[in-house]
């Protein structure tokens, strides 16, 4: 299997001196779907920002490799990052311009925008302004904006937070249709149980577990020690 993401001895300190990541080592193979879980403030989002080369502020220590590359342009092209707050990610005045933002920089044709919007079920939304959309719609526009850049790796930060059950269901359907390597940071443990074959557990900047999701998620002492719990779907044997 080709290695999509390789992280070797990655440490990071915030500018204020606080340690966010301590000596992380892991790799993710192509087409794997991996869950990244851990309590609030564990460093999940900080880690995701490293995979896209947004952190560290001074690039070039080579601790993160994406398909073997360490250059920013290559990493950003291959890694599509979905941010936690859609309002941070949707910065253009219209939906069309926002989805077109990435493709324009990459020199991809504009037809890709309509395609991406159709894929997330929002064709016809081109002229709408982001602030007139519901939270679920905003999330899907964000996803369209990321998909339009045709990344090989999809990195999602809390993709289901703030969505109502229908929004969550629709988002999961979409996610299932996307063929890419996926890394999902989330507190939605049922989502991890459903989608990810492998789980990484991060706590206080350290990787405390890396294994098959069936084993890790069922390890009650481990889960409770790190502010987590066994997902609901694994607690009941009967199908819902």
């Amino acid at each position, binding site marked *: 299997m080709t290695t999509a993401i390789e992280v070797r001895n990655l440490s990071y300190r915030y500018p204020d001196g606080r340690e966010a990541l301590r000596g992380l080592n892991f790799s993710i193979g192509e087409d794997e779907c991996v869950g990244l879980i851990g309590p609030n403030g564990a460093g999940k989002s900080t880690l995701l*920002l490293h995979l*896209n*080369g*947004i952190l560290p502020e001074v690039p070039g220590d080579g601790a993160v490799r994406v398909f073997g590359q360490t250059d920013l*342009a290559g990493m*950003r*092209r291959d*890694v*599509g*990052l979905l*941010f936690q*707050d859609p*309002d*941070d*990610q*949707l*910065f*253009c*005045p*219209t939906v069309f*311009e926002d989805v077109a*933002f*990435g493709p324009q*920089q*990459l020199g991809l044709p504009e037809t890709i925008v309509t395609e991406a919007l159709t894929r997330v079920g929002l064709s016809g939304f081109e*002229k709408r*302004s*982001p*602030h*007139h959309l519901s939270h679920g719609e905003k999330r899907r526009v964000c996803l369209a*904006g*990321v998909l339009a*850049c045709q990344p090989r790796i999809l990195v999602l930060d809390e993709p289901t937070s703030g969505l109502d059950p229908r929004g969550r269901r629709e988002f999961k359907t979409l996610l299932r249709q996307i063929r890419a390597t996926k890394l999902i940071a989330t507190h939605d443990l049922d989502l991890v149980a459903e989608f990810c074959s492998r789980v990484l557990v991060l706590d206080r900047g350290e990787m405390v577990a890396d294994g098959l999701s069936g084993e890790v998620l069922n390890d009650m002492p481990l889960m409770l020690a790190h502010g987590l719990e066994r997902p609901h779907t694994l607690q009941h044997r009967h199908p819902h």
Partner: protein
Amino acid sequence: MRHDFLDRYSRQDSPLHRVSAEAKLACAFGIVALTVAVPVTAVPYFAGLACALVAVTLVARIPFGYLGRRLLWMEPFVLGVGVLTLLQPEGWKVFLGIVVKSTLSLVTMVLLANTTPFAEILRVLRRVRVPGLLVTTLALMYRYLFVLVDEGERMHRARAARTFDQRRWHGWTTLATVVGQLFVRSTERAERIYAAMLARGWK
């Protein structure tokens, strides 16, 4: 929440809404330039313009109450500047001139904003080669103004929910804290937005 206090009527349909954005923008800027340039004594011009603006408002089906409220937001700035002219002899003439000219220009701009979607205005600005950085700044401002207002409202409400002291002074100090917090949160958000732009290949 209300996300449309700036341009509530810009997306409705009327003969004026269908006119091309280029024409409307050129017209609006022409009117403002002319209004600033004509002498204060050109009363017929001002009267004529006022009538024309009333007609535009009617055709575009923009309620006068809304127009009035938008003006109320901006008149304090006009009056603030105008009041200084009253200190000189015969100052009331200059004052009247400033008030009339500014008000007519403001009405023109409010009407432009409410007959043309903002994205269209930006498109025209880009087309006539207004520097890209300026257009991008305007676009971001328009996008995040509403997010900011929302955030401020939420914070204010959260504070109000735990405010038990109803004295006026307390209200002001609370407001000051909210504004300060809003500033801090905005800088943090700006950093996250910039990260999101970088993530999608911004150079």
